[in-house]
């Protein structure tokens, strides 16, 4: 009895995992034609948080280090960008590169002591970090203090990173999101991706197989920090204002982690799925529930996190994967049964 082996070398263009993203990409490119104004702003937020979630994923979903400090990298990216522009008159794009470099170095410096910490110690350290950074900026008059910084309005141009309509901003963040997705796919199919996953599963066994834990974790941290800084730079040039409370908000770190976890830790499309749900939820509750909404969306976040933690730690993508696995298994059993029946007949 022979088993048919699929020729896996041939790329099937009708494969759903190629078709769906392709269609999604086309839709994403056409979005500004379809919606505008506040709704476009919401989509921009969604893409922003999806990118941040993807960055979180590299550290948390792949390498297994739960960070609640990602708002710090984001906020620092914003601040460095703004300060470069205001103090030195540096071009916003150059400032973006500078902020990515500085935050990259910062994330590595933070990682070195923090990675010696286990699980919850690490999470606590990231919380403490956020508080420290926030306090520093609140008490730093040159960086705007508690009031914050305004980016001066300049002539509209790509060079100045200032536009009249939201549409150019949209395409910029879309490119950043696509970049983060490409990086995620690249990580997944690279040696470091395997090493990240190994470290997450079992650090001790990983050591025995020659994996340098510190170096690998720092790489994840660095990538994560740099990406967040990029998005932070985008954000500050989009809204032209930052303040310490808003930028380093602990709840933002929570949102980012929640988006990655809910979508599915370690998955490529988890962050965008998680972001769509969370951002729609948070904007929705803000509009429709008014003042009380502020508390209520935390209630919902909290419930979601608890439910996911208890019932489906794999997030939505995880649920989808185990569903498809069960179907495949069932199909195989039917096929095998059929072969058995044939051989009896």
């Amino acid at each position, binding site marked *: 009895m022979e088993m048919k082996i699929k020729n896996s070398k041939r790329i099937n263009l009708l494969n759903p995992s190629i078709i769906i993203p392709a269609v999604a990409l086309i839709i994403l490119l056409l979005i500004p034609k379809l919606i505008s104004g506040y709704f476009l702003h919401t989509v921009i937020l969604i893409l922003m948080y999806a990118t941040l979630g993807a960055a979180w994923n590299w550290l948390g979903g792949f390498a*297994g280090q*739960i960070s609640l400090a990602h708002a710090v990298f984001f906020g620092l990216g914003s601040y460095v960008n703004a300060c470069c522009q205001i103090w030195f008159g540096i071009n916003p794009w150059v400032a973006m590169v500078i902020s990515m470099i500085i935050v990259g170095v910062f994330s590595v410096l933070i990682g070195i*002591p923090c990675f*010696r*910490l*286990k*699980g*919850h*110690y690490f*999470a*606590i*350290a990231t*919380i*403490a*970090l956020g*508080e*420290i950074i926030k*306090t*520093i900026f*609140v*008490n730093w008059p040159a960086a705007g203090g508690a009031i914050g910084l305004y980016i001066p309005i300049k002539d509209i141009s790509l060079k100045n990173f200032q536009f009249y309509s939201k549409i150019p901003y949209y395409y910029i963040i879309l490119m950043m999101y696509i970049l983060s997705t490409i990086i995620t796919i690249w990580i997944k199919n690279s040696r470091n991706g395997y090493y990240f996953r190994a470290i997450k599963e079992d650090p001790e066994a990983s050591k025995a197989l020659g994996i340098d834990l510190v170096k690998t974790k720092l790489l994840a941290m660095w990538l994560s920090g740099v990406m967040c800084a990029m998005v932070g730079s985008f954000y500050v040039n989009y809204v032209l204002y930052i303040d310490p409370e808003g930028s380093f908000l*602990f*709840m933002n770190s*929570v949102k980012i982690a929640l988006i990655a*976890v809910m979508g599915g*830790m370690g998955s490529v499309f988890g962050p965008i799925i998680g972001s769509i749900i969370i951002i729609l939820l948070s904007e929705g509750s803000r509009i429709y529930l008014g*003042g*009380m909404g*502020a*508390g*209520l*969306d*935390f*209630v*919902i*976040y*909290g*419930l*979601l*996190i*608890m*439910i*996911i*933690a*208890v019932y489906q*730690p794999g997030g939505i993508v995880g649920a989808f994967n185990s569903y498809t696995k069960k179907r495949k298994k069932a199909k195989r059993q039917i096929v095998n049964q059929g072969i058995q029946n044939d051989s009896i007949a």
Partner: protein
Amino acid sequence: MSNIFLQILLGGVLTGFVYVLISLGLTLIFGVMDICNFAHGDFLTIAMYAAFCFSLWFGLDPIISLPIVTLLVGLFGAIVYWLLIRHVLNSSGMAQIFVTFGLMIFIRGMMQALFSANYRKITNPLLEGSFTFGSIALSKPQVVASIGAITATLIIYLFITKTRTGWALQAVSENRQAASLMGIPVQKMFILAWAIGAACVGIAGGLMAEYYYIYPEVGALFGSLSFITVALGGFGSIPGVFIAGLLIGITEVVGGFYLSPAYKYLLVYSLYFVVIVIRPQGILGKKA
């Protein structure tokens, strides 16, 4: 000059005692079952709001309603274990972190939704003003709160080390399987740990309601501080928590006075970082 210093120092010590009490519950839960309760600070919030409600609805001063508040919060802790924690005992560390994390956000949101974000305070508390010893003035409610804290800490410590149930708790924290094989009802011990842990915070919250502002995020600050305290002292170590709590209270108040109030907590968090780099397991914690 030295009088002022003594006053500030004592103020820090008093603050520290309260931190010890709050963190006691956290380290107990962690010691027994290896779970870091990120919602710990929000149990404090619940305690304070409970005391507030009793004051508002029944005119009971927090000092009077303290036993009830403690009981309620302790019960809440047990319920949280039963409904939530029980299900993630065998899940990954990540799931455990997330579950208490979600609880924290849930409680915070709930309090805000129910009571609004406004700051509340008890009107006409029983304890007001200060005790004066020579030229040193110590706030009455703070003194009472610290006395309450020390007493509660001592009771808990004696309970853990001198009673059979306390030994059972210790056994479970050493080796869950062995304890269960020796006939110790592990589930009951877990419920007890959560109940006592929460009750500690309940006492602290009830006492603090006498003089502190009550708002939905109040737990955030003290929660963070309690994590720092426990991590500094070493997860699972009661003596460690005692030392760390005092250290943090003193650092906060002394540092805040001599440097700047804005940098109070900066110092505390930085202290955490410094210690954690030199000694990752905390002052009295067990090495991984």
